[in-house]
């Protein structure tokens, strides 16, 4: 029964996406051509990967505002390595990207865990630091397509079964997360820590360590996305993906991840990212101005939060009454 309620929330979002796509198709039938839908999915893939990382951070009552800066710094690092050592194979670069991202995520996690600094402050700080480091590394220079090796640029675009590798990676990460979140003790502890940190402590779960793990995984995904982003767009500079962290948080919120922690699903997050992706990809095609797009994504966020707030308010009522009995 509960399962049904949860799925119904995602069903509502899925239905909204279908309606949105239908409306767009009515104005611009070409949008629903399979090749175009695949393109739109591919464009949304980085958002999906980052949103999944962000999801587990938010589940533990934290937030990571540094994901986009992490992505940009990692992208710059691998792009610079590639220009220096063009023969270094791409898999090694990917490993380097994931490692760099992991370290940056772990720094966020350590500061939150060991120094007990609020995550929003920690990641606001590291966001600026990571962006600043890109400038120091690159001295403000761009790395352009012609400086990158062909294999470096080709990897995310390489097509398997008519779908680019970038899309396959998003699908793979989604599947991994479904297993990790619902079938491993770590996944369960994300929900426990966010749902009730007090109860988690008494159950023998280390709250700080769990939050650290969430930040680290989130950083690893940001690092991976950093390489994919720079390779796909074939350019690296200080401001790539500027402000993208807000899209990532928005995707989570639209997908039903509670900002208060402890509530949310992988499928919801992916649908939230796709919803934003459809708006960003389709509305320009239909001729809606970029300002209206912003307004539409903003409205979607507020509707989603209002919806979540309403459902969680009903749930709190039962606990409070016994509290009043204190004589």
């Amino acid at each position, binding site marked *: 029964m509960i399962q049904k309620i949860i799925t119904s929330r995602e069903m509502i979002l899925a239905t909204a996406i279908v309606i949105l796509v239908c409306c767009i198709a009515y104005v611009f039938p070409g949008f629903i051509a399979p090749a175009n839908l695949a393109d739109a999915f591919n464009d949304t893939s980085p958002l999906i990967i980052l949103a999944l990382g962000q999801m587990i951070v938010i589940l533990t009552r934290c937030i990571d505002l540094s994901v986009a800066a992490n992505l940009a710094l990692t992208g710059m690092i691998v792009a610079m390595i590639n220009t220096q050592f063009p023969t270094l194979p791409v898999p090694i670069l990917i490993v380097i990207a994931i490692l760099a991202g992991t370290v940056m995520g772990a720094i966020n996690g350590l500061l939150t865990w060991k120094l007990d600094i609020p995550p929003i402050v920690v990641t606001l700080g590291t966001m600026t630091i990571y962006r600043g480091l890109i400038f120091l590394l690159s001295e403000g220079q761009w790395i352009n397509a012609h400086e990158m090796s062909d294999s470096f640029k080709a990897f995310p675009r390489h097509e398997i079964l008519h779908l680019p590798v970038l899309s396959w990676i998003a699908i793979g990460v989604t599947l991994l997360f479904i297993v990790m979140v619902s079938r491993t*003790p770590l996944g369960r502890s994300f929900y426990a820590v966010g749902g009730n940190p007090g109860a988690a402590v008494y159950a023998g779960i280390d709250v700080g360590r769990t939050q650290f793990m969430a930040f680290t995984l989130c950083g690893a995904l940001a690092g991976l996305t950093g390489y994919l982003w720079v390779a796909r767009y074939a350019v690296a500079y200080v401001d790539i993906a500027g402000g993208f962290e807000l899209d990532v948080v928005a995707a989570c919120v639209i997908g039903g991840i509670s900002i208060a922690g402890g509530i949310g699903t992988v499928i919801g997050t992916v649908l939230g990212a796709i919803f934003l992706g459809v708006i960003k990809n389709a509305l320009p095609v239909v001729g809606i101005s970029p300002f209206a797009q912003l307004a539409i994504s903003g409205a979607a966020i507020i509707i989603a939060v209002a919806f979540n707030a309403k459902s969680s308010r009903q749930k709190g009522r039962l606990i409070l009454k016994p509290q009043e009995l204190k*004589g």
Partner: protein
Amino acid sequence: MNHSDNNRQIEPAQPVLSLTGISKVFPGVKALNQVSLELYPGEVTALVGENGAGKSTMVKVLTGIYQPDEGQISLDGNAVIFPTSNAAATAGITAIHQETVLFDELSVAENIFLGNAPKGRFGLISTNTMKRKARELLHRVNADIDPDTPLRELGIANKHLVAVARALSVDSKVVIMDEPTAALSLKEIEELYTLIGQLKQQGKAILFISHKFDEIFRIADRYTVYRDGQMVGGGSIHETTQDELVQMMVGRPVDQVFPARKGLLGKEVLRVTGYSHPTEFADISFTLHQGEILGFYGLVGAGRTELMQSLFGITKPSAGDIYIDGQQADINSPKQAIAKGIVYVPEDRGKQGTIQNTPIFQNVSLPSLANTLKRKLLNPKAEISLTRKYTERLELRAAAMDQHVNKLSGGNQQKVVISKWLATQPGIIILDEPTKGIDIGSKAAVHHFTAELAASGMAVILVSSEIPEIVGMSDRAIVMRDGRICLELNKQQMTPQALVQAAAGIGNAA
């Protein structure tokens, strides 16, 4: 009337505030049942009762936080209602709480006049007038405090003085003091007594709530005793004795039947020696045996919960040793405690017990997940069967094991918490106020189950502030006061009077 403070006889004065026939019902519990309270100008009335007797509920009715379901409140002979706390404050009722509800980051003057600041030109707050008036008020309570000082720089006693000055600023008729001395030093308590004397002279009616009998007899003029939400006595303090008050507080009809216990003790499973914490408790030593229920009684703030949390690895002790089954044990985290067979069922279900938006089975399996894994992955089937095994023993009423916990009643939530801990198959279980705030039926179920646990060979520590529960359930009882063990009683010695007196420090120099 001001000068008729005769200690022997109380003049038939008019009460400034009187409450009659007040009832307040919460789901499952009648917190107040037809109780009365009268407060007289220039007199201190002590409100006495065990935890759960309804004292705090009454204060909340008085200050407009709760609306009574039945009964009348009259102020100066006129019937009144307090729909909001603001209405009560405007009518001249001020409460000073155990932990002051003031604002640390504001100045003393701002605290005194918050929400009631003197207005100057253009309706803006006039800082100078405010400071001048604050100085006058502080002078009236003999407080040597600069109105510009941020409140956080003051000690608790001075914060109380600020609260009193605030009470004077709105010309209160009634001042409620809810355990005002709980966090004060002896010197500060003396200052508070002086202040209460001044308030009496100014004709204020004072309601004084305290568990400390020496205080009550020192400063109160009248007393009122509540028990289980009912009024059981009242009158002039000079016409009663400590023993009589204790008797009224605890002497209750036998309406709670506790399970019969054989009380067969096995070998020693836990020995704690010289256990100390820098600030919360000191020099704690006791033993615990298989099949035993060891009661821990004390007033709120005696350090019982802090001690248990430390035994469970949440806080670190500064000295002392723990021996489990004769082996010295290091417990640095709840995880280690659970692994060594100690579990702790915390007092606050909401904050520390359950994860509300989560299915029952995920709550129950949380500390035992490692035992339900299948190829290192979670195995919901095993989790559900584990949950079923333990919740059935407790007769949990739930539609399904994947029902969310927040859909359950308080008593059933408590059963989920207890099932969770039983599923770890502990040797020692610490129950902290296991029946607080749950209905009588669930209480009996918890009592029966606790007895069964002990009978099955588990060692149980029962922390409770309810005397009948301690006396009815425990094989031995330990009383804590101010972070130390002050008394240990076996079954024969255990009387409600002995427990109350030890916890309140009666008979000892205060």
